[in-house]
């Protein structure tokens, strides 16, 4: 009789611990591409449609390979000086951990920020001529990716990758 009760208690404690722990949704390339760039598909997407959606690629390599630099940001409007400072302070507050630089110090804050990102965040493209203020987005990016797309002679996407390059 006591054993099932003990087992149930341990299970409940485990569930409580689990649910009480903030969940930070990882920004894996697969998840981010599915959320922000669902229309990129091998065999379907064309260079014209990709350019229409993302602007001209930052680099166009030989062999029909186009590369877009994409920044994931919380707010696609360009921040003024005060907003920039406030955002940088928040990032520092959430992530600065003197004991383990690989882990954020404030998991709950990071989890909340990640929720806001998936609700209101935007993917910003760096074109050949980045718009004014783009450097500020680069400072505040939640993550940076390169979309590498290899097009065939007919302009149709043959294969692509979505590479996370930071932070």
């Amino acid at each position, binding site marked *: 009789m006591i054993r099932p009760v003990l087992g149930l208690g341990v299970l409940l404690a485990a569930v409580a611990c689990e649910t009480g722990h903030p969940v930070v949704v990882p920004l894996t390339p697969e998840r981010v591409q599915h959320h922000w760039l669902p229309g990129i598909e091998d065999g379907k997407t064309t260079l014209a449609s990709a350019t229409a959606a993302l602007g001209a690629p930052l680099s166009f390599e030989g*062999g029909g390979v186009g590369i877009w630099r994409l920044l994931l940001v919380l707010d696609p409007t360009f921040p003024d000086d005060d907003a920039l400072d406030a955002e*940088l302070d928040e990032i520092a507050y959430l*992530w600065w951990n003197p004991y383990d630089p*690989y882990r954020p110090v404030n998991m709950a804050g990071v989890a909340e920020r990640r929720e806001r990102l998936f609700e209101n965040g935007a993917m910003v493209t760096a074109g050949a001529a980045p718009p004014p203020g783009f450097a500020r987005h680069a*400072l505040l990016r939640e993550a940076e990716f390169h979309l590498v797309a290899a097009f065939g002679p007919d302009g149709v996407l043959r294969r692509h*990758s979505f590479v996370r*390059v930071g*932070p």
Partner: protein
Amino acid sequence: MVRSAVPFLLAGLVLTSCSTPRPAAVDVPERATRLPGISIGQTTRADLLLRYGMPTGRFENDRILTFMLRLTADDELLPVSGDVAWRDPRFRTWDFATYSLVTVFEPDGRLARFELVRVNG
């Protein structure tokens, strides 16, 4: 007889473990052999771009491409943007060990040779 030998055996084990050198850190040439998806004569320029993203350097009319890589805590080499925001704490670990993957291509676009150069840390 056996019992009296146990302390000496334990002491011997402890001393041996103290004097055993720690495994050497993986050196750069060995790490280069672990780079996935790179094969001389087979890997194409497109293959490398798809794996590592935009090159951080280009030389000799794009015959030579370089990619900046960082070593993660999981011993993975991942591509790094050339644009690092040093005020952002998330970049704090990035200066510990950085590598430059230097790739040289044949005129037909296939990989002729490559080197992994440790440039920091």
